[in-house]
């Protein structure tokens, strides 16, 4: 059993409170990703679970045991640091064996566990090398290997991929997902990269300014964000937000077009949110929005068109394939009513 439970967790540095009462239940074997912009408190939260930061208020339990006052080594956790934190004066083998040796594990068992971890991560060939003779991706594996050999109940990852280049990051992401499948351990992973969050997580915890904005599976967050922050943060292309005003039977869009709509809380709607991939091109007569094409980015399989509305707002549309659009042309856009998100004045989603 390695559930992790957070109850009213607070963290203050002097008078400045940076984490304001976080409640969270993480089930045994779950892969949970903390995601949020820098300074949202996600790393602080992870470090409190790790026992590297004292907790100002609240209660953390791991496997049913309150660990507020339990020192880090006895919490049954292993942590992978952003900088990998490999000991530069020790070989890969010594790096991985360090924790076991400290725990006075018999030599044969140390050897067996280090080699087993090395086998899982395919770093057997580097065991005698020093960390400085390894590439970034190899160092990353050693850092993960060092965590695996200790056979922890909970793995903690603090932005482990942020120092890798893009292709290696994608590759390592897949490996971490496989590793989670193999090890069946609870994993808590901190990142500011929403792609990592979407692809790795069983559940994502979106944090902002020391508070949880929303907890849910990647698809829940994508489909039903509870507010404009989550809506704007999750998914690779940021959601478009359009200021609207509600009328009796629909929403007044910029450019004087009406979007016919019925909704129990229609009068409270202030912002309309729609993802770039849900917008469609239309002709002048059926268009809900029209504007000038300011920039187009062609990716081959899809293109992103940035359209400036006469009101000054910018709208992004994701188009399949390689559309033949000219810069500064007028683009007509249809807003499909079925996929839009409605938000009130405070940015809360209206369902």
């Amino acid at each position, binding site marked *: 059993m390695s559930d992790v439970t957070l109850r009213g967790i607070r963290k203050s540095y002097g008078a400045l409170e940076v984490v304001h009462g976080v409640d969270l239940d993480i089930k045994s074997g779950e892969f949970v990703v903390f995601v949020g912009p820098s300074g949202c408190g996600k790393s602080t939260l992870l470090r409190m679970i790790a026992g590297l930061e004292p907790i100002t208020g609240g209660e953390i339990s791991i496997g049913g045991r309150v660990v507020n006052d339990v020192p880090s*080594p006895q919490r049954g*956790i*292993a*942590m992978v640091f952003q*900088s990998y934190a490999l000991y530069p004066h020790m070989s890969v083998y010594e790096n991985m064996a*360090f924790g076991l040796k400290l725990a006075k594990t018999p030599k044969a068992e140390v050897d067996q566990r280090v080699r087993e971890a090395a086998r899982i991560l395919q770093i057997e060939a580097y065991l005698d090398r020093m*960390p400085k003779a390894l590439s970034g*991706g*190899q160092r990353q594996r050693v850092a993960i290997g*060092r965590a695996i050999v200790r056979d922890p109940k909970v793995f903690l990852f603090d932005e482990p991929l942020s120092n890798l280049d893009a292709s290696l990051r994608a590759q390592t992401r897949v490996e971490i997902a496989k590793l989670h499948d193999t090890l069946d351990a609870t994993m808590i992973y901190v990142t500011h990269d929403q792609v990592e969050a979407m692809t790795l997580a069983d559940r994502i915890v979106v944090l902002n300014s020391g508070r949880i904005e929303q907890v849910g599976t990647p698809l829940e967050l994508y489909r039903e964000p509870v507010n404009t922050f989550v809506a704007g943060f999750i998914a690779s292309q940021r959601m478009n937000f359009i200021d609207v005003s509600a009328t009796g039977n629909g929403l007044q869009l910029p450019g004087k077009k009406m979007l016919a709509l019925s909704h129990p809380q229609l009068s409270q709607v202030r912002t309309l949110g729609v993802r770039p991939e849900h917008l469609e091109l239309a002709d002048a007569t059926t268009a809900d929005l029209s504007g000038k094409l300011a920039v187009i980015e062609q990716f081959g399989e899809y293109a992103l068109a940035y359209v400036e509305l006469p009101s000054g707002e910018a709208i992004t549309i994701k188009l399949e394939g390689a559309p033949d659009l000219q810069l500064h042309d007028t683009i007509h856009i249809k807003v499909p009513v079925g996929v839009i998100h409605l938000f009130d004045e405070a940015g809360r989603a209206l369902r």
Partner: protein
Amino acid sequence: MESTQPSRLTAIALTFMAVIWVSPFSWLILNAFNPLSTGQLEIPSVVGLDNFGEAISGNAGRQFVNSMLIAAGTATLSVVVGISAAYPLSRLKIPGRNAFLWALVLLRMLPAAGVLVPLYFTAQRTGLLNQLGVIIALTILNLPFTLLLLKNFFDTVPIELEEAAYVEGASLFQIVTRIVLPMSRAGIAVVWFFSFTGAWNEFLLPLIFARVQDAFPMSVGLYAAFGQQGAINYGFLTAFSIIYAAPAVGVYFLLRRNMNTGFAGVGVKG
């Protein structure tokens, strides 16, 4: 052949400089290896190590041992005390720690002779007018430099490495001895060697603290060797000087090797 003109002039100037620089050393070496040395700059008719034999036996040998004791003792004590003080100074947010460090450095700038009188009376009261007293006094005088240097070295050890070791179950003592110190090898070597040469070269404190012949180190012995036998024994004196200077040369090479291999820092990028 215009281009050779300046180089010929340069060559002559350099030769002149070389002669000026080299002649005292050649005098030193020629006399040291000449058992029949007279103190003249001449090619010896007999070459032998008799002078060196004399310079490491009896009183002179005793002084060599004393010098080694004082220098190695001071260096080791400086490193041990320096580490114990510099690590907390590097890791803990002590209010005013920088002001404190720089105040120490200011104190070190003051000439040692300026604090000689209080040092002497302290040593007298505590019964330390001996080699141990010299070691302690030199360590205290070394400490500002030692602290500042070691603190800077400890500052370069990333805190994440210590956190990683802590999570893996290392005690503070294990973190320091197995992570921080091995990674600061270069800094520790620099401090040890500098303290060693500093103490080896020290003249004033041993002269005043160690008032018996048996306790004199080489620096004091060299001073006393002038006129001890009525006439100056140049052969003995030059051999003694060479032995006295040797550790500094050795330390230089050791230090250079250590500085080249000591920095084991590892970057984040791959």
